[in-house]
Every structure is written in structure tokens, then in C-alpha cells.
């Protein structure tokens, strides 16, 4: 039902997506979460998958997002959403499973679950909201807080000599063969919102096509804990976060493989192997094969 794709036919140019429940979110005014959450709902509408979609929202500002969607939803422990999603996907492979995680959740306490879900090529979709701060707990330093960034727990600015450097999640996960798609987007202006929407939809499509692990990182704002107006927060994001977190597709193995095949490449970069394509080999068989 949503908006942009049907804009040419319908008198309705834009409206609230169906997959969003008719409730007021408890995000602060101007919080990027609301935009991103809407884009996820729009993608669910466009692909008509609401009835078989289950979302996982772990601890963080999005912890109550189980009330905001019309699809089935589960809460997860802090950082464990990819593990919970794994259990769901393995129990019902035909369902579409997404997680919606913040930076502390995904890149700090849940880094092991994130990396291993990716390297397994777990056929799930991860939406990673990177606003460089812990929002729910009131603005502490996150694994993605940039050098020099002042937070409640880095009051003199993030000192990389003691607190280390921020983690670029998409780049890190791109090194893993199980990652099908790792793309970083932002929602700082209408044009980028449209790009983000396309990326989110593509990530769902990859799951439907059983491509493996997809992650869309959305560089976002936290006006309240940054101490800025929603509008000024986007300007701060543009000037400070985007130089550190370059936007774009960091890894798209299916597309790389398709492009290589088109050019007649004999040895294209391999897409993640689908589970049902794996030939089972014992060490003995492998030796015989060789």
C-alpha cells in the first residue's frame, strides 16, 4: 500500500504503511528510529510478506518495537537478536525473520552473535541503527561513538588511546563469506531516505531468495542524547559521522557473482552457498574425491 511505488496510480501519494500498528511510538520527537521503522514496514508492505514475517527487537530504544508492527514480534535479550532469529529461521525456514538492533546491542554486547550469524550465512535480515550512542540508557559511549565524541561516559571526548576506535560494522562483516549484502545508508534527507528504503527492501528480497545474511546499517541520529534539535542532529551526522562511516554497498556477493558471470569470468567471486546446495562430504569421501 505504501506510498512511493503506487504514487502514479493512486490519488494517495503517501500514507502510513499497513505493517505499522496504529500506536504512538515511544521514541523521542525527531528520532531517526521512526523513519527507519517506517521504511521496514513499507518494505514489508511492498513485498506482501507481513503474514509470514517475524521481527526480533532486543534491548535498546527499539525494545518496545514489538508493539509497533503488525507482524509477529519477539523481544530478545541484549545483543542476542541474531541468535534468536537463527532459532526462528531454523524452526520455520519459510518465514521471513528480521532483527532491528542498535549499535550497543549489535556491535558491543552482541558482536559475537552478529559475526557468527553472518559467517554462517544465516538467512536473516539485520537492520542496524547506528547513532553512535546508547540511547535508552541515557547517552553513554557506544562502540560506534567517533573519536572525540562527548557522551555521558566519555565526558572529555572519546579518547582512542584508552577507549579504542569505533567499529565499522559493514566493512568488518564484508570480510565474511557468509555475508550476502552489507550496505550502509542514512536517512538525513528525502533522497537518502529513498535510497535507504531500496536497500531495506533489497535485504528482504535477498532473504526471500535465500541468499544468506544481509545487514543494512542505517547511520542515524539521537537528538535527545546528542543535545541537538532533530534538524541540527542531521547536520551533525552529515559533518561528523558520515566521514567516518562511508555510505554505500560494502558487499553484495550475489551482484558481484552476476556481474562476473556476465563478463564471462571463469572464477567469479562466489555467492554464499545455499544450505541445500552443500554437498555432504566426510573426510574419507573428500580424500577419495581428491
Amino acid at each position, binding site marked *: 500500500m505504501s506510498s512511493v511505488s503506487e504514487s502514479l496510480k493512486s490519488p494517495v501519494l503517501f500514507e502510513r504503511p499497513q505493517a505499522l500498528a496504529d500506536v504512538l511510538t515511544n521514541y523521542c520527537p525527531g528520532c531517526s528510529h521512526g523513519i527507519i521503522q517506517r521504511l521496514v514496514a513499507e518494505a514489508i508492505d511492498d513485498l506482501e510478506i507481513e503474514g509470514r514475517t517475524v521481527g526480533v527487537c532486543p534491548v535498546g530504544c527499539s525494545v518496545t518495537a514489538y508493539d509497533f508492527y503488525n507482524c*509477529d*514480534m519477539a*523481544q530478545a535479550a541484549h545483543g542476542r537478536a541474531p*541468535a*534468536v532469529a*537463527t*532459532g526462528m529461521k*531454523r*524452526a*520455520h525456514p519459510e518465514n521471513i525473520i528480521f532483527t532491528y538492533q542498535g549499535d550497543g546491542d549489535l556491535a558491543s554486547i552482541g558482536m559475537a552473535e552478529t559475526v557468527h550469524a553472518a559467517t554462517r550465512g544465516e538467512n536473516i535480515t539485520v537492520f542496524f541503527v547506528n547513532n553512535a550512542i546508547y540511547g535508552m540508557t541515557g547517552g553513554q559511549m557506544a562502540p560506534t561513538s567517533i573519536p572525540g565524541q562527548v557522551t555521558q561516559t566519555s565526558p572529555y571526548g572519546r579518547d582512542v588511546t584508552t577507549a579504542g576506535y569505533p567499529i565499522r560494522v559493514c566493512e568488518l562483516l564484508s570480510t565474511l563469506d557468509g555475508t550476502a549484502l552489507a550496505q550502509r545508508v542514512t536517512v538525513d534527507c528525502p533522497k537518502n531516505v529513498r535510497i535507504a528504503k531500496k536497500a531495506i527492501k533489497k535485504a528482504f528480497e535477498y532473504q526471500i531468495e535465500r541468499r544468506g545474511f544481509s545487514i543494512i546499517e542505517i547511520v542515524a541520529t539521537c537528538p535527545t542524547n546528542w543535545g541537538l534539535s532533530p534538524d541540527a542532529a542531521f547536520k551533525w551526522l552529515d559533518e561528523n559521522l558520515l566521514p567516518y562511516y562511508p555510505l554505500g554497498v560494502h558487499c553484495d556477493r550475489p551482484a558481484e557473482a552476476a556481474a562476473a558471470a556476465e563478463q564471462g569470468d571463469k572464477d567469479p567471486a562466489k555467492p554464499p552457498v545455499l544450505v541445500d546446495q552443500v554437498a555432504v562430504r566426510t573426510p574419507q569421501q573428500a580424500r577419495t574425491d581428491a
Partner: protein
Amino acid sequence: MAEKVLMKGNEALAEAAVRAGCKLFFGYPITPQTEVAAYMSKRLPKVEGGVYLQAESEVAAINMVYGASASGARVMTSSSSPGVSLKQEGISYLIGSDLPALIVNIQRGGPGLGGIQPSQADYWQATRAVGHGDGHIIVLAPSTVQEMADLVALAFELGDKYRMPAMILADGLLGQMMEPVVLPDVLDSAALPDKPWALTGHQGQRRHQTINSLHLDAQELENSIIRRFERYETVRLVEQRAECYLTDDADVVVVAYGAASRVVRSAVNHARDEGLKVGLIRPITLWPFPTQAIDLQIEKSQAFLAVEFSMGQMVDDVRLVVNGRRPVSFFAHTGGIVPTPEEVVVAIRRVIAGEQIDIVPFKSKLTGDRA
């Protein structure tokens, strides 16, 4: 009737789980439970819809269990003491979300890395303090390889019935030993209970559902805990299980569970040969603790003796039931040392002679007792 096969406890348990309709296993290697995972890795890929997944950690494994359980599947994980400690947060979330699942703890000694020998040091963790907050799980204690198999189906059944996690609390002795076992029949998948609450996707057929343990409104949280405790009360009333062995005329009753009860059974037999009137009450459900069986015994017996492979944990539950009406003595080894039947017979003799003993393996400054 199926034929008897010779199997390790861990493997009998794993096979029984498959036969009870458990198609998903998420685990992480740890001694002395590893055979459970190894067996599942071989068995489940051959089962339609079967999934064996070696998780990146115990923490991830229990959260995979959470996801699969939330989706309505019969699912299990297994570990040993330090690994179960890592799973505790996840178990707490299962409790708070009213999700069933089987958690197997093949106990080893602790604290910390402890040892890999048989131990019963996790009794309090399993029955009192699994995760945080007001909550319980069902805890079943097998004492033979046959029970390692038989209690699995019961754990799944009770878990599904009361929407609670269930634990099989065994130890390295039971997990590693081989005994003849008659494996349970394969459960007809049509016999699995419906789970209308499961997150299967609404498929356009119903309103959306959530699985959640978060209640930001304090009154709502209290209400949810009270509803859960109303269920616990039912479990306490109707699901207690214990074996009473030679208790009818027993002047002294020994209370012991799991592997410790095997030593005690031998000791009771030896003591009976000496003409001592002694019996055994063996709790099979540790939570709910079999208070009814012990309560009924108080009229018949003069004293109780608890025997454990720990510094004294279950003995507290015995004392709570007895409530001062009879003396409760205690005998133990810990750290992986399995007491001999002869040691237990010595303790039984002293209790029958009217002593109240508290024998742990060190010289107590308070009582002077020592092993």
C-alpha cells in the same frame, strides 16, 4: 516392547529427545556433556526438519533455543555447570516469556572451572536461582541411564503443558556411564500439543502476536508474575515425583537424588543386611521438590539423613519440609568425590543410634564432625 540396548547416558538422553519430537538442538562443547551434542550432530541431519547447530557460545545457544521455542518448536540445549551459568540470562528470558524448552545440565564440580568429575553443586542454581527474578523451572533428576531417557519426554511434556523451561539435572557419572536401556517409542508428531501462542507469522489469519518478558508498568509486571506463580502452585501440587524404597518400616530415611541415590541404595541394602531399618526417598522432581512424600514419612520415621555430592544444598529442602519435627542429618563429599556405600552405612548407623550428624569433608569448628 522395544529391545534393550547398551548406551551411554548422554546418548540415551539425546536419542530419547529425538524420539520425543525434538528436532532442533543448539549447543556448545563442554565436558562431560559433549556426547549429547555429538550424538545430535549425527542424528538430527537425518531427521526431516532436523537442525543441529553448534553455536558460537552457550549464550548464543540458549538464545537460539529461545527463538525456536518462540516459533513453537520442541527444542533443547545441553551443557555442563559453567556453561549453564552462561545460559542463565537466556533461561530467565524463557521464564519471563513463558516459553518451554529443555535444558540439560550434566553437572561438574564448581565453582569456576572446578573439575569434570560428578557433582551435585548446581542444585541451588537449578531450583532457586536460575536467572534472576521471581521464577522457576521444572527440574528432573535421573538416577539411571534408563531414566536419562525416560525423563526427557516428561520434561518436554511438562514444559509444554505449563509453558515453562524444564531442566534435566544429571551429572558426569550418569552422562558417561553405560547401562542397558529400553528406548522410548517415537512420539507421533500429531500428538505434539498445539501452541496457538507461537510466532509462526499471522498468515493473515489472526492478529499479530508477541513474545515478550518486558512489562514497564509495575502493576502489569506484578500481575504477570502472580499469574505465573498460580501455575507454579499447580505444578507443586500435582507434579511432584519421588521414589520411595523400603520406607514403610524405616526408622531412618535417607534422602538422595541422582547419582548419589545409587550409592545410597547400595548403602541401604547393606544396612538392611545388618538388620537396620532404613529406607530411601529419591526425589525425581527437584522442582517441585517432593514435599508430599517426605511429609508422609514423618509419622513413620524417627530421623532423616540427606546425602549429596555437594556441601549441602538439597538438605535445606528436606529441613524445610521436616520443619523441626524430626532431626535431619547430612553426609556429603564434594568436588567430584563419590562417597562409598560403606561411608554412608557408617553415617546411617550413627543416625539410627540417635545422633544428629552433619558430616562434610572438613573438621567443623562448630560441631567437630568430620568425614
